């Protein structure tokens, strides 16, 4: 890791650990002041000037520290603003995963479901088709009618309804709402990798401390073998997410986003099962920290596409290309 990256990763870990139990507003101030949301903003504009791989460091840490704020979403919003050549307003910016509505010259009418921290954010960024092209749309949350919802981890996933709301809009070349959704999947893959790492860490610590039959649980081979699998899934999800972020920095990245979400979803399923099993009843309590990871892992598997969704997408693409192209296509992705 380069020196700058090490610094970024240490700062992120410190800030997210410090702000973990703070109320959202205060936590967000700390996060914003540390510049975590500005990792993709150019240095000239006061950001970190980082790559998508740098962004992954922050997003994975968000998962590993069970960060209860739309930090990954805000980073994605800055990337969209870069692509559209606009400057984001100040505040907490979230993402609208799948807008259902239209632009009518001056305003946006329609609704966006599943907006992370919609109620808390100042603005929501999304992509809407207009004419032959695609527009980045930035709307003020204050202009929306908010229907609150939460995912199983208690994270706000609100529906925002707009009626001819005034907006900032700009053509966003190379993007459409499908790509936005795929990048959302990539964000979640990094968070999943982080949360699995968090669950592994807890599981190792817990089984080394907890004694049964006169010795630590970690001494039992049945426990060791399960935790080894959990460690394998940690490695696999980390690698899949990292490859997607690398691809996002160099090319289109759609296949990689899909594959990373598909793989990390599978890892999440295995990991939640093992982490809970080795914790016994303690892991099933509100008091103990494990659920901060596992409830998010359950929620995130559905958000931005489950295995059926991405499996179908990849599967039809691969089948259409046929067996003769399969391998050449697969290796071309990393060349």
């Amino acid at each position: 890791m380069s020196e700058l990256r090490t610094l970024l990763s240490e700062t992120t870990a410190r800030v997210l650990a410090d702000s973990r139990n703070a109320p959202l507003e205060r936590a967000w101030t700390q996060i914003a002041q540390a510049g975590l949301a500005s990792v993709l903003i150019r240095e000239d504009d006061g950001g970190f000037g980082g790559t998508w791989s740098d962004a992954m460091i922050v997003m994975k840490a968000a998962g590993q520290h069970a960060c209860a704020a739309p930090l990954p979403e805000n980073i994605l919003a800055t990337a969209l603003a870069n692509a559209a050549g606009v400057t984001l307003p100040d505040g907490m910016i979230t993402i609208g995963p799948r807008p259902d509505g239209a632009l009518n010259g001056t305003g946006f009418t329609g609704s966006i479901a599943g907006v992370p921290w919609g109620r808390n954010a100042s603005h929501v960024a999304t992509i809407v088709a207009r004419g032959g092209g695609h527009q980045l749309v930035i709307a003020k949350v204050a202009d929306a009618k908010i229907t609150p919802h939460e995912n199983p981890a208690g994270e706000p996933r609100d529906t925002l309804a707009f009626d001819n709301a005034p907006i900032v809009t700009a053509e966003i070349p190379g993007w459409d709402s499908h790509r936005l959704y795929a990048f959302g999947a990539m964000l979640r893959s990094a968070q999943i990798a982080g949360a699995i790492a968090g669950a592994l860490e807890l599981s190792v610590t817990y089984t080394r401390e907890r004694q049964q039959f006169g010795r630590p649980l970690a001494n039992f081979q049945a426990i060791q073998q399960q935790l080894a699998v959990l460690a394998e899934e940690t490695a696999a999800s980390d690698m899949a997410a990292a490859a997607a972020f690398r691809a996002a920095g160099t090319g289109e990245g759609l296949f990689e986003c899909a594959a990373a979400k598909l793989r990390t979803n599978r890892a999440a399923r295995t990991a939640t099962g093992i982490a809970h099993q080795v914790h016994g009843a303690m892991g099933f309590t509100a008091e103990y920290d494990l659920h901060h990871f596992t409830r998010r892992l359950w929620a995130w598997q559905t958000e931005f596409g489950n295995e059926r969704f991405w499996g179908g997408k990849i599967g039809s693409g691969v089948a259409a290309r046929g067996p003769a192209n399969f391998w050449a296509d697969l290796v071309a992705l990393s060349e």
Partner: protein
Amino acid sequence: MPPAAKALRKEVRAFLNEQMPKSVSSAEKARSWSGGAAAFSKLLGQQGWLGMTWPKKYGGHERSYAERYVVIEELLVAGAPVGLHWVADRQSGPLMLRFGTEEQREFFLPRIARGEAYFCIGMSEPNSGSDLASVRTRAHKVEGGWRINGQKIWTSNAHSAHYMIALVRTGEAETRHAGLTQFIVDMKSEGLTVKPIANLTGESHFNEVFFDDVFVPDNRLVGREGDGWRQVGAELAFERSGPERYLSSIRLFLEFLRVAGPNPTELEKQLIGRMTAEMWTLRQMSMSILGKLAAGEDPAVDAAIVKDIGTSFEQELPRLVQANAREDVTLETGDAFDDTLSYLLQTSPSFSLRGGTREILRGIIARDLGLR
């Protein structure tokens, strides 16, 4: 992947296109590094695709680990018959490069790089499988060398290899890890007998090897006397992290794609998508170890992770394909799909045994986690 690797990949594909007979069946291709052809190994040597990363003075080609990776993954995917030289190129050569004497390097490496010297791995014994440190085959010192007595088992390709790297006991005290030493044993040595063992399909790839006072000269001891355990450990990272640890079932995946056609059912799409994502992830994982191997590190834990996830995948693939194959598929017609499926159903149990079992790999990972 560096740009040179891309050009090389093209070259390898063109070569394979020319050299792989069109008539080779899919099930035959699935054998890949379990099968072998002497002429093919020589051809690869002529291409400069064996001993690729080794110094030129030992007949190597001083190319990068990434370039070697490109060559071996293309060979495996094409189902090329690479089994004869596989072990020599993958681990015996690197072992000698790292621990061997100058004379050993000068003698063996050029022969391996030409595709003329094949090696086998003499680790397992009847009473020492997972518990490798308990091997009993013993070498005792004699004038000018050593005499080996004992038995190895499950030795793949002992019947075709020219040499074995044997792990044997030389120490007097039977302490578990100390007192083990590696020797290069000439398979034509007097007193050495190879007996094939048929596997459950009736094919014979592995063997029993008996040592009856087999003489090995002093200059065939590898590395340091008593250091065998540590040396074997270093060898295993090469053995466990390569693309052959997730690609063993790729022929069946390609057959599944062929039969599913361009407009597969929803179920088929799901499976294809899932298996593709898995292979893509495993490839990233396997390639990420290259850098560490190139830097002379010993990524034993990373390699164990790749091998366990990789072999679990290549083992699950035939089961998934069987469970979800179309209604009219039988295992009896001898068509390419059936043949490949039935071959892999029967051989896939070995994937998580050879090269260290699943349980042993997980034990290595658990130790790294601080659990043992």
